[in-house]
Every structure is written in structure tokens, then in C-alpha cells.
């Protein structure tokens, strides 16, 4: 299935001749200082600025409107800026691709009307950041494990192994489906174990959809940044225990992409 991230909306208020817009990355507390070297999306990338209103600020940069956004550089620039912010301060990340006409509109239409809501959300995130744990099954190890645990699969494999592929297509599909189901069951069990291991550490957790057919675990955690060392220790231990069957990675601190929710009961503007 293909999902394309097409243009979200077109505004009548944008003059035809407008060639630049204000790209918005996210919302942070007002008292942050952006490094003069920080560059954002677009080609060439422009400096990142902060637009303040009251106790909050939007991280923005100018972007040319005559070129589509979404190159690898654009995607990385968006996340790297937000993750760098998340390592220091609470941050409300926007979904990739948010552009507003100009600085004034960012303040007047985005920050001012939503000030209190954003302040409250930032307070909830104070001292916390997102971490993502990704684990991928080690191919041969997991398949060996599965054959050892599933006599039926092992029998089928032995039966068709030395036969020509064309003659055994249905059996191969059947075998593959058994493997697939076994991996799904393992994923569920291993994810449950991971969640149990980090339960005491995490404020919130979300099990993400697998992004690969051999994904073992894919979980987003909201954690007090002061407990990062504890999280790393738990992951080291789990990684050691799983070393021969799962390759484990820990990403973070990241912006809380999985834990900010667009306000309810508002599906956006028509």
C-alpha cells in the first residue's frame, strides 16, 4: 500500500507572487537560544530562528515555495533540529511539511491563539524525552529457532528442500506463512518482555507498527531524561541477553513524536 504525503491545503490568502514561506518545526519554551549555525530544510538551507510569543516560541526557517519539500536532507534537517531541542528542552514536534505565510502569521495565528494549550503540553513534557527501541531478528538464528520449535515447519522444509522450486510453490508459500506467523508470535512475546523491562522506567510507551518483516521490537518510550543512564543499562542488559538472536538499537533523546496528540474534536479547517 502506498501512502503519498500530498499537499495538505492551499490557502486563498497566499498571494500568487509569494515565493517564500515560513517553515515551522515545532514549539519550545520561549527561553531557548538557537545556535547561529543551525540550518533547516530547503536548498540552500537557511538559518533556523525562534519566534517568541509569551512563554513559548516556534522554531522556524524561511523556505522557498517553488520547490517541493521532502528530500532526504529536508527530512533529516527537520528531525535533527527537533531532536537536538528535545535533548535540552521540552518540544512539541510538528508533522513534517508545515508552512505558514510569514513570521507574523506564525505568531498571530499559531502561537497566540494556542498559547495556553502549548504551555500546558510543554509543562507535561518538562524533563522528559522520547526514546525509540528498535530490534531486528538475526536471520539465521530466528529461523533456526522457529524450525526447532515447530516440528510441522521443520518437516515441511525437509520435504521440499531438495525439490525444484516450481514444483513446490504452494508448499513454499505454506512454509513461508508458518514462518511469518511464528515471527509475529515471537515479536509479540519479545515486545511484551521489553515493555515489562522498561515499565518502571517509562512514563508512557507506544508499541509501533513493525517497519520490517523481521522486526523483533519497535517501541517508543517517554522517559525522564534524568533516567537515560538507567534506560541504557536496561537496554545493554537486554541486548546482551538477546545478542545471538536480536540486534537491538536505542535511539534518543528524540522529540516526543509518538506522544503529542493533535487536539481532539478538531479535524482541521475546511
Amino acid at each position, binding site marked *: *500500500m502506498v*501512502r*503519498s*504525503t500530498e*499537499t*495538505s491545503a492551499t*490557502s486563498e490568502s497566499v498571494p500568487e507572487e509569494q515565493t517564500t514561506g515560513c517553515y515551522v518545526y*515545532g514549539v519550545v*519554551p520561549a527561553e531557548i537560544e*538557537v545556535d547561529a549555525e*543551525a540550518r533547516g530544510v530547503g536548498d540552500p538551507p537557511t538559518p*533556523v530562528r525562534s519566534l517568541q510569543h509569551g512563554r513559548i516560541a516556534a522554531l522556524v526557517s524561511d523556505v522557498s*515555495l517553488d520547490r517541493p*519539500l*521532502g528530500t*532526504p536532507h529536508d*527530512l533529516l534537517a527537520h*528531525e*535533527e533540529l*527537533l531532536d*537536538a*531541542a528535545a*535533548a535540552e528542552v521540552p518540544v*512539541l514536534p*510538528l*508533522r*513534517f*511539511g508545515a508552512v*505558514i*505565510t510569514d513570521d507574523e*502569521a506564525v505568531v498571530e*495565528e499559531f502561537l497566540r*491563539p494556542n498559547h495556553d494549550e502549548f504551555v500546558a*503540553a510543554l509543562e507535561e*513534557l518538562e524533563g522528559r524525552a522520547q526514546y*525509540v527501541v528498535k530490534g531486528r531478528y538475526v536471520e539465521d538464528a530466528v529461523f533456526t529457532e522457529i*524450525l526447532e520449535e515447530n516440528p510441522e515447519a521443520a518437516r515441511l*522444509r525437509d520435504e*521440499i528442500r531438495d525439490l525444484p522450486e516450481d514444483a513446490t510453490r504452494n508448499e513454499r*508459500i505454506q512454509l*513461508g506463512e508458518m514462518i*511469518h506467523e511464528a515471527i509475529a508470535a515471537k515479536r509479540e512475546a519479545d515486545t511484551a518482555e521489553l515493555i515489562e523491562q522498561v515499565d518502571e522506567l517509562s512514563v508512557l510507551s507506544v508499541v509501533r*507498527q513493525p*517497519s*520490517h518483516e523481521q522486526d523483533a521490537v519497535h517501541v517508543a518510550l517517554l522517559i525522564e531524561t534524568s533516567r537515560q543512564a538507567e534506560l541504557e543499562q536496561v*537496554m545493554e542488559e537486554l*541486548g*546482551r541477553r*538477546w545478542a*545471538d538472536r536480536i540486534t537491538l*538499537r536505542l*535511539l*534518543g*533523546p528524540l*522529540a516526543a*513524536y*509518538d*506522544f503529542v*496528540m493533535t*487536539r481532539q474534536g478538531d479535524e482541521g479547517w475546511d
Partner: protein
Amino acid sequence: MTVQPAGGGAAERRTGSGLADVIDSILDKGLVIDAYVGISLVGIELLSIDARITVASVDTYLRFAEAVNRLDLTDKSKPGLPELVQSVKGGDQAPPEPPEPQKLQKPKTVIQGSLESAGERLGDLTDERDDGRRKKLRRTERPEEG
């Protein structure tokens, strides 16, 4: 808006590891600007990114079948019972060195190899973050605090 677990992202894609991680996070998660801004929203064209939902397909099944057919189960690295017994006997005669790893010599090497690399991976990631990324922003003093 509230801070709470959002629904898991459904659409994903495989590319280089760094970019794949980014795509997992920023395309379908985070606040949606449309819910907060009306007339000043600029619709900019976004490059369409083919994001695949991981669904089981016949291709997947055939790939799995091929992978298990390739496995050589006779070449197991785990020690059989006789090997174990032998090692234990050897352990009795040997001086009281750490006995546990001695028993499983062959697998020990294998496991330790993967273990070290897993440790390195975790270390690399955290180091990387410490080095560059945090420098982009810093918190200034809040006058009202203190």
C-alpha cells in the same frame, strides 16, 4: 491537545538506517498544523514518499521459505550433550578458574562477538548524540526562576 500515546504509525519504509528512522517518526506523527492554523497555511508540495505498510505477501512467504531452506541445521554451534559432559569432566581436573564460560567454549566465542557489537552499537548512538546535536540549541536562564 494532550500528551498521550498516539496511535502507532502505519506507513513505513526501508531505506538507509538513519533516514528510515526519521521517516518512522516525522511523516505521520507529531502535531498537524492544519488543526491550529487556518488562513495563513501554505500548501507546499511534498515529494511523495512511498511508505509501505508491512503486510504479509506471497513474496514475503517465498523469501522466508528460501531463507529456511538455505539454513544448514547440521552445522549447529550449540554443543551437544557429549561435548558438555566432556567439558565438565575437564573442568573437574582444571584449577578453579571461572567454570561457567569454560563449559561452552565454542558458543562462548560466538555469543561474545555479537554481544560486543551490540554494546558498541548502543554506545555509538549515544556518543553521536552527545557530540554534535545538542549544540544547536541551549536553554537560556529564566529570569523569573531562582
